[in-house]
């Protein structure tokens, strides 16, 4: 266990292992995303109330779910960085912020597009949409704070603190916004208990959520590799890497 932890803290090891994971995971993820999209777009029946516009669910919900999970990934990385002073945790934190922001953005935009045919308006101040918007602000705050520091090690620590503060606040913000807008749809996916969504629609949705998680992992590794290269550019292992690649 500890040796695994120790290895995780080692940039060259992480760089190598992430390379070999990405070699199969990235193509697989891309294929899965396309397959899931085709399944959801063309091979599922329409919703009896919303018609075909509901097909946006197959990107909207996975993006929203993974965007929220991404914040927790970031916060856990932040906690590891502050407690065990692990440099790789900083890198992971920095790497997950733009992905989370992008996914939140997707969730917001697809939500707005879905809203037009469903509610007749692009934007309603519904509890979930508002919460997603706030999540986007939290992500942008992390990115902005990181970019504002010249000393990248300090930047990582500062973002770790901010991510943890945000994590404590997210449930409070969500509950407040929820209360503020109590007229919201009840959660329609439940993993336990009876599900209100038909299996023919649920399976592609679960498939897409999995694919989005895989995509998050891929992008996280890609970002970490890019960050590692620029942070560790003065070290021997990068020099060897450059020499090999030439």
């Amino acid at each position, binding site marked *: 266990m500890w040796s695994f932890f120790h290895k995780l803290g080692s940039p060259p090891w992480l760089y190598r292992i992430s390379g070999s994971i990405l070699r199969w995971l990235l193509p697989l993820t891309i294929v899965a995303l396309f397959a899931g999209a085709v399944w959801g777009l063309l091979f599922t029946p329409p919703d009896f109330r919303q018609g075909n516009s509901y097909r946006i669910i197959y990107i909207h919900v996975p993006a929203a779910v993974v965007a929220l999970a991404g914040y927790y990934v970031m916060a856990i990385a932040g906690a590891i960085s502050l407690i065990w002073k692990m440099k790789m945790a900083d890198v992971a934190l920095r790497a997950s912020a733009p992905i989370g922001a992008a996914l939140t953005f997707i969730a917001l935009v697809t939500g707005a597009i879905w809203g037009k045919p469903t509610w007749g308006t692009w934007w309603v101040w519904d509890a979930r949409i508002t919460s997603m918007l706030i999540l986007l602000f939290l992500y942008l705050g992390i990115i*902005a704070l990181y970019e504002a520091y010249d000393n990248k090690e300090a930047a990582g*620590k500062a973002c770790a603190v901010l991510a943890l503060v945000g994590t404590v606040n997210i449930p409070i913000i969500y509950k407040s916004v929820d209360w503020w807008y109590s007229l919201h749809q009840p959660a329609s996916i439940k993993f336990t208990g009876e599900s209100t969504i038909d299996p023919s629609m649920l399976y592609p949705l679960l498939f897409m959520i999995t694919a989005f998680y895989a995509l998050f992992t891929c992008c996280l590794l890609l970002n970490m590799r890019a960050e590692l290269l620029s942070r560790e550019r003065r070290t021997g292992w990068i020099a060897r890497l450059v020499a090999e690649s030439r």
Partner: protein
Amino acid sequence: MNATTFFMLIVRRQLLLAVRRPIEIANPLLFFLMVIVLFPLGLGPAPAQLATFAPGIFWIVVLLANLLTADTLFRSDFDDGSLEQLLLSRQPLYLSALAAITAHWLLTGVLLALVSPVFALMLNLAPSAIPTLMGALLLGSAVLSLLGGVGAALTVGLKRGGMLISLLILPLYLPVLIFGHGAVVASVGGLPVAPYLAILGAMLCLAIALAPLAMALGLRISVDA
């Protein structure tokens, strides 16, 4: 020197510094007044309409006033090296940060709460809602000061921290806005306000417990960078 004495020392020091430059105390109050004047000009002077918006206007202006002053919380102590001395003092930084926030709250939140009845009458808010407004302001502005302190601690080492701090902490301010506003609206409508004040109080307890920890970490990082 024990921790309580040190806590009081910092509070006294911050208050004394503010008293020596009174405009620093007046600034948030003047800002508060001027922004409140903007609303009748922007929304129209109809008393009934103003009264509907008054609770929201109050809270938004308090948020902004707090945000403006948050950036200056540690700025001068950082620039002149006092912050370094504080970090080296071996006094618990948690308490020192809390002391700085207490002084900030006394100078912004408490003062705004004290003058708020005047503005409430100007905006035609029901007089019966004024005690609730003041109570909610007292509790809520303490939470705002604590959260603002976290933002200030994280950005004090940066040259362009002013704009950044609003991006960092405005999202965190929202629960206070929602429940502070809710309290005043409930009071105007004759509904019980205790639940709202209790929630604000709970937020304050949580913020007192955790925000100074984040501030202590943030200050160490800022002095380091």
